[in-house]
């Protein structure tokens, strides 16, 4: 039984490592400027976690194999170096490595959260509600009109609670159901929740940020590949959570300009 168990451990360890080593489950393609920092950090962490995982599982299996059928005269042996050696190993090898990894990983975090958006970034407001995303572009005046919760009306397609008759800033605002952005240009997304918690997750963009009701948060990113990507909700928001999605359309600058004009005409 002990030897069977040891073999099973080794087989499971190898079978677990195969999909990673063979890239059977790669991360989705990266279409962002900051994403490569996350991906490199992920690869480094995977290397360290993988070595720790394989080494300790195989050691466990070997010790079970080796020490489970002692001969009658066998004496207890102590691990070379004893407990202190292992404590030192934990501090020096694992501790320092993991901490160093975390330290260098802050670069990727800082690139997303600690740098302010560029002055010429395209500003878009995103609103999440049960169970749809809506987006608002400020129009030629570059400012958003205020949100009036009491004016929100699904029936009249007034998703943002815009009062266009009284608010000058709202008159030229453009509301859409998909998020179109120009390629290679920074986008500053202002995030507003209409009702409960939601999240903005585009795996290809390496961006995930919660919508926090009562608190307006923002995130900024630059997409580098033209295409159509899914925006999904990752914060449990009710029965339609699984189906809450929108599309991110990364367009060339010309296509984007044309699209904005076309949307403005539809308002």
């Amino acid at each position, binding site marked *: *039984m*002990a030897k069977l168990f040891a073999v099973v*451990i080794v087989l*499971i360890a190898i079978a677990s490592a195969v*999909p990673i080593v063979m890239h*059977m489950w790669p*991360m*989705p393609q990266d279409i962002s400027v900051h994403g490569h*920092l996350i991906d490199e*950090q992920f690869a480094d*962490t*995977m290397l360290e*976690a993988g070595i*720790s*995982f394989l080494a*300790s*599982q195989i*050691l*466990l299996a070997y*010790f079970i194999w080796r*020490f*489970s059928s002692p001969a009658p005269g066998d004496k207890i042996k*102590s*691990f070379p170096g004893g*407990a202190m050696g*292992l*404590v030192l190993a*934990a501090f020096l090898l694992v*501790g320092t490595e*993991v*901490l160093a*990894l975390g330290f260098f*990983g802050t670069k990727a*975090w800082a690139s997303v959260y600690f740098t302010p958006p560029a002055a010429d970034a395209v500003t878009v407001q995103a609103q999440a509600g*049960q169970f749809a995303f809506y987006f608002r572009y400020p129009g030629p005046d570059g400012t958003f009109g205020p949100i009036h*919760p*009491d004016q*929100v009306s*699904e*029936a009249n397609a007034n998703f943002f*609670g815009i009062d266009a008759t009284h608010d000058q800033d709202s008159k030229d605002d453009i509301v859409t159901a998909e998020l179109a952005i120009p390629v290679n240009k920074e986008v500053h997304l202002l995030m507003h929740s209409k*009702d*409960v*918690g939601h*999240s903005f*997750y585009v*795996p290809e963009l390496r961006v*995930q940020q*919660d*919508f926090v*009701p*009562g*608190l307006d948060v923002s995130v900024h990113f630059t997409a580098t590949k033209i295409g159509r990507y*899914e925006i999904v909700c*990752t914060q*449990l928001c009710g*029965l*339609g959570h*699984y189906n809450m*999605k929108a599309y991110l359309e990364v367009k060339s600058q010309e296509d984007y300009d044309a699209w904005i004009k076309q949307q403005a005409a539809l308002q």
Partner: protein
Amino acid sequence: MPGSSSRRHCSNHVAPDAFVRGAFARFVQTKHLFGVSAMHDMSAHAVGHGAPTSFIRKHVFSIDHKVIGKQYYALALVAAVVGMFLSWLMRIHLGWGSFAIPGLHLLSSSGAPGDVMTPEYYLQLMTMHGTIMVFFVLTTAPFAAFGNFFLPIQTGAEDMPFPHFNMMSFWVTFVAFMVMVAAFFVPDGPSLGGWTQYAPLSAIGAVGGPGQGWGVVFWATSIGIFCIGQLLGSLNFITTTLDMRCKGMSLMRLPISAWGWFITSVMGLTAFAVLMPACILLILDHLAGTSFFVPTGLVIGDHVLPHSGGSTLLWQHLFWFFGHPEVYIAIVPGMGIVSHVLITNMRRPMLSHRVLIYSMAALAVLSYMVYGHHMFVSGMNPVSSLAFSFPTLVITIPSTIIVLIWLGSLYGSKLRINSASLFSLGFVSMFISGGVSGFFLAQPSLDIMLHATYFVVGHFHLVMGVAAMFGIFAGTYFWFPKMTGRMMNETLGKAHFILSFIGAYCIFMPFHYLGIAGNVRRYQAFTDDYLIPLVPVHKFITVAALVTGFAQLIFIYNLIYSRFKGPHAPNDNPWQGTSLEWSTATPPPHNNFGATMPVVYHDPYQYSVEGAAADYIMQTSTEKVHSPDEEK
């Protein structure tokens, strides 16, 4: 509070019975304060209560910690079966969404019309699965069940200092479970908000979705009551460990399992004390019109909600301040149990008893400083994410020390293979596998990709779900003879082990790959373009979950059959253990040790000592042998 006065006089050299009488007298005085009648038999016996004679006092409203421990075990077993059944329903739905599960409409005609689950019913079952498993299985079984039964025995006490609080602790937990299960039968069913119950979805009432009205009120009431039970239990565990040790039992002579329960009870006392007020505030938001967790200006169905001024993140902070220590509340007793079982089966002490204890204590302390890693993308200040990331990475160090001590102690041991030791070794393997994925989730930059994906689900199921379950199984196979006087079937135990071990990996390893591919959790169906190719993996996981689930029936059969028909334990110490539970009768008498209280002369784990008469020296043995391991 009873027993809060200083009891410095009660060192391990004071006869415990004198102390127990004192503690009990204080307890009785408190009962007068509450207007409850005094115990009639308080001074009749050293233990403060005589052996009960009526069926009700013996088996139902018992104040004997051993009976309470078994009651907790039975409750956890029922809860585990319910939780596992719910996971089957969820897995079938995830693999084959349109499959009609025969009879499901009987559970809820609106939730499963035509026996096919609705999206909301999936979330409701998921919420109940998580809640029942975390609270009523992982918290009660390794901590409250085994801890209640064995902590007083391992410390050499006759009972816990507050036996009535102990009885209350179980029955309060029982009521909490009943309230939780009752949520299945309220009109629109249990809450769909997940076991974390994030506000404001949990606080705005029925407009939020099915089950968000009474379902949440039942949920919060149940968990609030559950907290009371855990607070009472923790109080008893702490006082038992600090004040009730028998003569010669210094703190460092306590077995590692007792240390596990003690450290856990300290965490329980502080963590559940935060969750309980959070639940009360949540209930007030529902029933009293308050707005603790609901901000101004939320709109649902074109209506502005009447709430104003609350904070969404407040709930997350309160919940995770409890929630992260809770992870260690689930796993630290398992570490203690598994170390205890391994030592007995390796016929040697761990490389260092102290280092293991200090590392477990370090986990407990750090567990309060890391909770923000659940909130990296929550909208919390991004600087605090880094502040929470650092201690999370530091927690790798005590965890690694614990694993290395286990591995290093295995080296050169005389390992005995039986069901208990197999599950302990399986625990080690699971803890490693679940632990390394923590390297990723501890880093905010990687959490951007992995947050709320199946990677997280795989991580916590391995490290606290499966590992803690393996700890429960190891404890069951190991202590069954002492608890019941009978032996469990080893062949069935080994079959149960190997199926569970392979099965658990088949279920939870693929979760990590799904998460890396961006598979979001808490989805009842995968309709997104990039998720559709992952559906075959979900089918594989479903099959693995069903097979592994059926393997658990072997355990339940073994448990029940052995309880009534198993062979009698050959003697009081079938595994040749050293700690106090093995020096008393099987099953232990009402006051644990019979006429004479034990006196301890040795460290807990004197195995394979050169020149000793046998390969183990019991803690109560008066044999004088020089042992290099003996603490000075």
